[in-house]
């Protein structure tokens, strides 16, 4: 007990206290200069009548749905391809992981160079081929894809490493048994590899869902929430409410809604995917 006390203290002060304080704050009308006034569930009622907020929820879900499946499949594919003890594989593992260490500012800067229709890499290429450049940053749907692509590129490293770690846990003789059992590569993947990675897949999907629902930096820096609010994510909405309009109570209420969504989603994912998987741990 004594040894966890320092951690527990920090945990209470910087996580639990703000969480409870936030809940209280969301029930008040309060701005950055202070002076709270209790208004009950007023902020929440306003939120669900606010079309901008509803659109930000939809945009956030759309982004998460674009990013999480592609990111998971891509990371798994890379891990499968790079799960070997060659020098080349080691180099590529490093390369694919390296994007994760960049700050979001650098990442969006790089992708602006790629995606900008007039001077970007893709735009120039399209023009050289005589095609119309895709308006990645100014079209409502394409700008969502611009955010998704940027995010996938930025976040691929960690899930890839998690999958690699999961693959290393599978003992080689199971694959030899599968070879003697006439399993094709495809059968081996579906019946041996994927079931063994089940927990890792759940972990990656849960972590990424929780992370992508909080997507912010890319949206603010790459598209600024535009065009026409098409890429205004929930955190961007919260940020604008708190630090542009100074409506602290309102922003906190939005943050509580996001918090609830994330908790419910990850809990549902965990419960549905982990059901009936007891006894899989042994080998």
């Amino acid at each position, binding site marked *: 007990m004594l040894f966890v006390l320092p951690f527990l203290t920090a945990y209470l002060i910087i996580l639990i206290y703000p969480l409870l304080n936030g809940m209280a704050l969301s029930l008040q009308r309060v701005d950055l200069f202070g002076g709270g006034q209790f208004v009950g569930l007023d902020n929440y009622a306003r939120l669900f009548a606010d079309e901008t907020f509803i659109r930000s929820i939809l945009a956030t879900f759309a982004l998460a749905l674009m990013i999480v499946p592609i990111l998971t499949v891509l990371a798994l594919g890379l891990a499968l391809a790079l799960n070997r003890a060659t020098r080349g594989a080691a180099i590529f593992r490093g390369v694919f992981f390296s994007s994760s260490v960049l700050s979001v500012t650098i990442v969006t800067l790089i992708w602006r160079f790629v995606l900008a229709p007039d001077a970007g890499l893709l735009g120039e290429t399209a023009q050289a081929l005589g095609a119309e450049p895709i308006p990645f940053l100014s079209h409502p749907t394409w700008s969502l894809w611009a955010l998704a692509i940027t995010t996938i590129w930025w976040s691929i490293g960690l899930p890839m490493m998690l999958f690699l770690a999961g693959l290393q846990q599978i003992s080689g003789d199971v694959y030899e048994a599968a070879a*003697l059992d006439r399993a094709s590569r495809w059968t081996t993947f579906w019946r041996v590899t994927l079931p063994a990675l089940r927990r890792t897949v759940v972990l990656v999907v849960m972590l990424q869902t929780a992370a992508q629902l909080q997507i912010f930096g890319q949206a603010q820096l790459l598209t600024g929430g535009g065009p026409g609010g098409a890429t205004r994510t929930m955190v961007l909405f919260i940020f604008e409410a708190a630090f542009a309009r100074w409506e602290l109570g309102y922003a906190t209420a939005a943050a509580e809604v996001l918090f609830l969504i994330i908790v419910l989603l990850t809990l549902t994912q965990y419960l549905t995917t982990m059901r009936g998987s007891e006894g899989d741990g042994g080998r």
Partner: protein
Amino acid sequence: MASLELTNISKAYGATLVLDDVSLSMEGREFLAFLGPSGSGKSTLLRIIAGLETLDAGEVRLDGQRIDTLAPGDRGVAMVFQHYALYPHMTVRENMAFGLKNARVPKEEIESRVAEAARVLEIEEQLDKKPGQMSGGQRQRVAIGRAIVKHPKLFLLDEPLSNLDAALRMRTRIELAQMRNRVDAAFIMVTHDQAEAMTLADRIVVMNDRKIQQVGPPMEIYARPANTFVARFVGSPAMTLAPAELLAADNGRFASVRLGDGSQVETRVSREGLPGGPVQLGLRPENVHVARGGEASTAAKVELLERLGERTLVYARLKDGQAITAEDEGYSSLQVGETIGLRIDGASAHLFDSEGNGHHAEAAA
């Protein structure tokens, strides 16, 4: 007809040669044991037969058909892995059925084969469990079951008993012997445990240093070891090998030697075919007894006693410092440090020439 034929097999990992021109022929449905220390190449040879390793040179034929060019699953062999290698997320039933499903065996056929194997191995109650919920012994049975249902021509067993505790190992050994009688297939078992090899195999293939040292029935390996390696490796405790001097011909048919401490031993090894030069006298513990009364042929000092119950092993040293292992009765009154007389049974002794090749006593006429 030879069931499995290995011809001139060589294998190297980079610059390290692990199998050097190995040839072996298996007769009918026999049970072979590859016996050898770690790094002798026995597991590599098994894996080459299974198709889990490629070979650099040579051929593998099973029932006349060349199989070293085929995929592992197409060779008609089944393997039981040392660590079982069961699919952890599949039930026992699915584990056993997996190979048959991949081979597109009809569903009813799969069900009947799995049911039959489960009955034989007494794991019917476990069919819907997963390997993680089972004990080591039960997993071992599932691994064997997974091999049986394939009706292979050849079973490959990679140290099948090494992960079991002593009591279970004895029981599984007996069960393997029984299974062998029920199944119409040949068996190859890799082991470093000579007791397993001696009790289960029709013939033992002793391997060391990338090569086959000797192939023969267990008692022949024990009684007529081809060389000093086999002599020392098979038998527990190991055979005593004492440097000796061949005595000049005295008209007798059999060779006599003088040990380092001056004592003489008359063997029943024929003088003919024995090259000159230094020899080693090979003595199994049961051929050296503690002498009571005046029948001792030499004396030794006791260094260590191992009381095994029905007999006592005596580790002693001759006057010239040569270590020798002898046997005494179970209730031995010997003490460490005591000097004792030893009676060497020369008629059962072996001689090894300077090349290390064994020469053995002729059967008493």
